[in-house]
């Protein structure tokens, strides 16, 4: 896996069936998916390692991710099927402002084990 935002994280793996727009699709207050068009509508991603196959939606997703990281409701880390600078900038800004990490990697689903997943060197 290639690091977009390097760092360490571990958590239960959640595989999203589709891309998710964090803005309009993720509630920073609760860490849940609120996009009703998303197959995993209602699921909590807080503290999880989230695999997201594609990018989707709003350019404000960076803001919502940073806000969720600030509040403590963000995923522990993200693995993306394709690079996405919008989520990267959200994670980098949260690290700059609050010194909290949300590492982001690009990788294949096959590289991830089921259950609890570890990102970054330990």
């Amino acid at each position, binding site marked *: 896996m290639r690091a977009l*935002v390097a760092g360490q994280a571990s958590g239960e793996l959640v595989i999203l069936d589709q891309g998710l727009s964090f803005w309009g699709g993720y509630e920073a207050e609760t860490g849940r998916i609120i996009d009703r068009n998303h197959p995993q509508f209602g699921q909590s991603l807080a503290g999880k390692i989230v695999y997201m196959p594609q990018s989707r939606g709003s350019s404000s997703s960076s803001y919502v991710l940073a806000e969720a990281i600030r509040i403590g409701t963000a995923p522990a880390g993200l693995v993306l099927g394709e690079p996405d600078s919008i989520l990267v900038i959200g994670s980098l800004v949260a690290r700059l402002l609050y010194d909290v990490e949300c590492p982001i990697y690009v990788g294949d689903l096959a590289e991830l084990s089921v259950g609890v997943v570890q990102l970054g060197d330990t």
Partner: protein
Amino acid sequence: MRFTDRDETILNGDLGEAARIALELVAAAGGAMGASELLDISGAHIDGCLYHGLAGLDFARRLADAGGEVVVPTTLNVSSLDLLHPELYRGDEETARKSRELMNAYERMGCRPTWTCAPYQLGDRPAHGDQVAWGESNAIVFANSVLGARTNRYGDFLDICCAITGRAPAVGRHTDEGRRSTLAIDVAVPDDWLGHDLFYVALGLVLGRVAGTEVATIIGLDERSDEDRLKALGAAAASSGAVAMFHVAGVTPEASTLGSDRGIPRVPVDGSTLTRALRELSGDLDAGLGAVSVGTPHASEAELEALGELMRGRTTSVPFFVNTGRDTAASVPSVIESIEAFGAVVVTDTCTYITPIIGDVDGLVMTNSGKWAYYAPANIGVEVALGSLADCVESAVVGKVVVSGGLI
């Protein structure tokens, strides 16, 4: 990353702390996207001025307090407040205060208080070939596809960093290679559908799903795909997918150079696929009509004029909202008068699906926007019905959802 001498000067902090932070973030994001160098931009559009919590305010304040100032002409997206009609806001005071602080921070950095999601409707929009850094998904896709300007999908925070440094990663839609189509969409529908606004909304919703982040060439459209229809198409595609750019064969400026459909996969799209996409976003029509909202993205002058004509001598029977930019509204004052005489409320600087304006609604909210229909249910808790601009006005007059054209 290869840096120029000026980049190095900025990274050393010689041009101030804000510029240093901004360029570090531009370079880090560029590295993630696979860029090996940066390029100069001639303009920016900032999406980070819409309040979604403290993180954005903390960041804007950090840059503004550190002396951040944009070095290229920079426009601002919608915010959470309508500064011209403050009485429309039904949210809490604390959020309003923070939203205003956020707006102030961006103004302090030298951004123009345009407060519109359709900066391409302002007089001085980018030209074909211009390199810019734009946020706001609908504006990005319009700039690339319809204007032929060049921008990637800049997220909130990265947009202002590009504006402060005048630099952007030289990758993706900034390059010829990244603008070449990799997918062709073959549209086969009855000819009269091409004269129907809702067709372009449906095609956008399907394009987003099929293309994802890819650049597609749409085949089968003609000169009836005017700017407002392409705006609706792109806004829908950037909601259901992450589309940053599309070509329309025979219509958009780079279709003949970068939009060749030779040797790429072809996806057929027929009427039933489009109809299904519209139905999936619509609530139960038996719920009745509660309100109407049009102008997402912000209504153009042509759309306001069309509304003025449709509304002449008639009265709405439900709350009716028209979102537009303050500059656009100011350019057609008599049209705004006819819209208000109909009983409609003109909303500027913000939009009815991102901030509490509509209030409690008994029934569906009808809209002509695929983007509004996509996001409003989660954002403000309403069910929607889709129709053309004319359908929206007709429905408002008779007090129930009326959709013409046979698309739904």
